[in-house]
C-alpha cells in the first residue's frame, strides 16, 4: 500500500489555506459593486439574505436568489471560475453525495419503478443542494470582496462584543505566524529525513510538532500580553468611531430589504 506522506500533505494544506486567505485580500482591493458599499451593509445584507435562504421553502425562489448572487459576483470582480472552483464543485461534491440517497430513501409515491425515486425525495435533494449552494455563494462573495479587518469592524457595529471582535482579529493575525512556523518545522524535518518513516513514527512527528507549536503559542500569548500591557492595556477595548453611510449604502439596504421581503413572501 502506498503510504501517504503526511508532512507533504500537511504542508500543502497549510499553504493552500494561506493562499486562499490572501486571494481574498486581492479581490477585495478590486473595484466592484460589493467593494463600493460600506462593510456594515455588506455583512448585514449577506447575513440577512442567508437567513432568508434558510427560511424560504420554494426551489424557484432559491434559484432566483442564486441568480441574483451570481450577477452580484460578476459585478464585484468575482469570476464564475473562482465561484465554481471554490464553491459550486466543492458543495456539489459534499452536499450532492449527501443528498443523492434522499431521492430513494424519502418516503412517498415512487415516480419511477427502478430506481424508485419519490417526488418528496427529489424535492428534498434539490432543495438541500439549492439552499446550500446559494448560501455558500453569498458568503463567499462577502468574504472575497471584504478584507478581514472590515468584516470585524462590521461585526462590531452588529453588536458583537468588543472583546470577541478583538480576539477574532488577533487570532487571524497569529494564524499566519503559527502556520508559517509549522511550515518551517515540517520543512526542516522533511529536509533531514532519509527513507520512509513507519506510521507510528509519523504520528509521533506530527504530535511533537503540534506540541512544540503549542508551547510556542503559549509563550507568544504571554509576550503579546506583556506588549499590550506595556502599551497601556487594562482590559478595555476601544475601536475607532464608525464612518457614515453614503446614499448608495442606503440604496443597497433598501434593495436587500425588498429582496428579502419578496423572497419570504413568495417562498412561504
Amino acid at each position, binding site marked *: 500500500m502506498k503510504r501517504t506522506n503526511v508532512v507533504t500533505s500537511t504542508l500543502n494544506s497549510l499553504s493552500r489555506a494561506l493562499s486562499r486567505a490572501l486571494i481574498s485580500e486581492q479581490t477585495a482591493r478590486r473595484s466592484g459593486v460589493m467593494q463600493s458599499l460600506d462593510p456594515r451593509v455588506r455583512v448585514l445584507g449577506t447575513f440577512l439574505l442567508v437567513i432568508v435562504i434558510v427560511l424560504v421553502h420554494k426551489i424557484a425562489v432559491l434559484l432566483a436568489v442564486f441568480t441574483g448572487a451570481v450577477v452580484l459576483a460578476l459585478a464585484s470582480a468575482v469570476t464564475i471560475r473562482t465561484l465554481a472552483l471554490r464553491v459550486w464543485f466543492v458543495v456539489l461534491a459534499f452536499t450532492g453525495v449527501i443528498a443523492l440517497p434522499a431521492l430513494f*430513501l424519502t418516503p412517498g409515491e415512487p415516480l419511477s419503478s427502478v430506481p424508485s425515486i419519490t417526488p418528496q*425525495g427529489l424535492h428534498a435533494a434539490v432543495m438541500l443542494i439549492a439552499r*446550500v449552494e446559494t448560501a455558500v455563494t453569498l458568503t463567499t462573495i462577502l468574504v472575497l470582496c471584504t478584507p478581514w479587518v472590515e468584516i470585524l469592524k462590521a461585526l462590531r457595529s452588529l453588536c458583537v462584543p468588543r472583546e470577541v471582535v478583538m480576539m477574532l482579529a488577533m487570532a487571524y493575525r*497569529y494564524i499566519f505566524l503559527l502556520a508559517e512556523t509549522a511550515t518551517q518545522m515540517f520543512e526542516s524535518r522533511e529536509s533531514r529525513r532519509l527513507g520512509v518513516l513507519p*506510521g507510528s513514527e509519523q504520528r509521533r512527528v506530527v504530535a511533537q510538532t*503540534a*506540541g512544540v507549536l503549542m508551547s510556542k503559542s*503559549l509563550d507568544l500569548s504571554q509576550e503579546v500580553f506583556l506588549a*499590550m500591557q506595556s502599551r497601556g492595556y487594562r482590559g478595555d477595548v476601544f475601536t475607532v468611531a464608525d464612518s457614515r453611510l453614503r446614499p448608495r449604502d442606503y440604496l443597497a439596504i433598501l434593495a436587500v430589504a425588498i429582496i428579502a421581503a419578496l423572497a419570504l413572501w413568495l417562498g412561504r
Partner: protein
Amino acid sequence: MHIPDGYLSPSTCAVFYGGTVAAWYVCLKRLKRALLTRVVPLISVFAAFAFVVMMFNLPLPGGTTGHALGVTVAAIVLGPAGAVLSTSLALALQALLFGDGGITTLGANCFNMAVIASLVAYACYRTLAARAPISARRRVIAAGVAGYVAANVSALAAAIELGIQPALFHDAAGAPLYAPYPLKIAIPAMMIGHLTFAGIAEAVISAGLVAYLQVADPSLLAATSGLNVPGMASGARTRASLRRLWVTVALLLILTPLGILATGKAWGEWAPSDFLRPEARAQIASASKNALPPAAPPEGMARLTTIWTSPFPAYAPAFVRSRALGYLLSAMFGVGVCLLIALLAQSRLRAHPRPEQVT
C-alpha cells in the same frame, strides 16, 4: 462535522445560538475571574494554534490520514472554559474566513465541537487520569480515550440535530425542508466515519501531545491534573466536601421511589377531579377530621389548574410505563434542574476573588 447553512431549520439554529452564547458568557466570566486581562491574548493565540492544528494531516493506522479537532488538547491544557472559547473562535474563523461551516449553523457547530466536546473531553480525562502523577502513562491513555469519546459524542450530537430535521420540518407532501434523513439513517452515517477515522485522529493527536508535554513541558499539564501543584489553588477541601454532597444527592435519588409506597394523596395536594370521585372525597374527609369537602371543585382552583401543565404529570413521563422508573427519572430531572439553578446562583453570588498580581 461542520454543518453548512441550509441543513438546519432556523428555529434549530436559534436554539443552538441561544445555548452556545450562554456557554460563551459563562466561560468568559470564569476565565476573566482567574486570568483577568490575560484572557484576550491567551484565547486569541490558542485559537490560532487550534486553527493551524486542524489543518495537520494525521497518519492513522491502516495507511489513511485524518484531521483532528484539537479540542481535547485545549481542554487538557486550558481547562473546559478556555477550550470552549478557543475552539469556538477557531470555528468562527473557519466559517467567516473560509466558509467552512455555515453562518446560521455556527451556534450548532460551536455547541457540538466546542461546548460538548470540551466538556466531554475534560470529564473523561479527569476521570480516567484521576490523581495519576503528571508523567504517568495513564495520562496518555486518558487523553487518547478522552479525544476518541469527545469526537464521537460531538458527532452524535450533530447527527441528532440533523436527524430530527425531517420529522420536525417538512412540507405538506412530506418532503423534508432541511437535512433529509431521519435519526435511524443520520446517526449510523455520521458515526461510522467518526468511530473509524475522526475519533482515532483526535485520540492520536491528544495522546501524542500529552506524551510529548510530559517530557518537554510538564507544567502545561499541571492546571487540570487535579494534583496540588505549587502556585495553584488547593482544591482538596472543596473536593472532599463536594464528594460528600454528590454521595448525599445520589443516595437521595436512589431512595426517591419510596415516595410511591405512600398511599393516597398528600393533604392539600388534591386535583379538581378529586372533588368529584367518591373514594377521593372520602379520603379528603378522613384526612380533614371528617369535614366534608365542597361538592364541586372550588372555582379558583379549577381556573388556575389549567394555566400550567407539568411536563411530567404525576411524576411519571408519558413515555415511561413503569411508575417506579418514571418516579426515579423525574427525580433525576428535578435534581438536575435544581443543581443547575444552584450552580448559576452560586456563580452569580460568589464574591470576586482578590485579583492576582499581574506580572
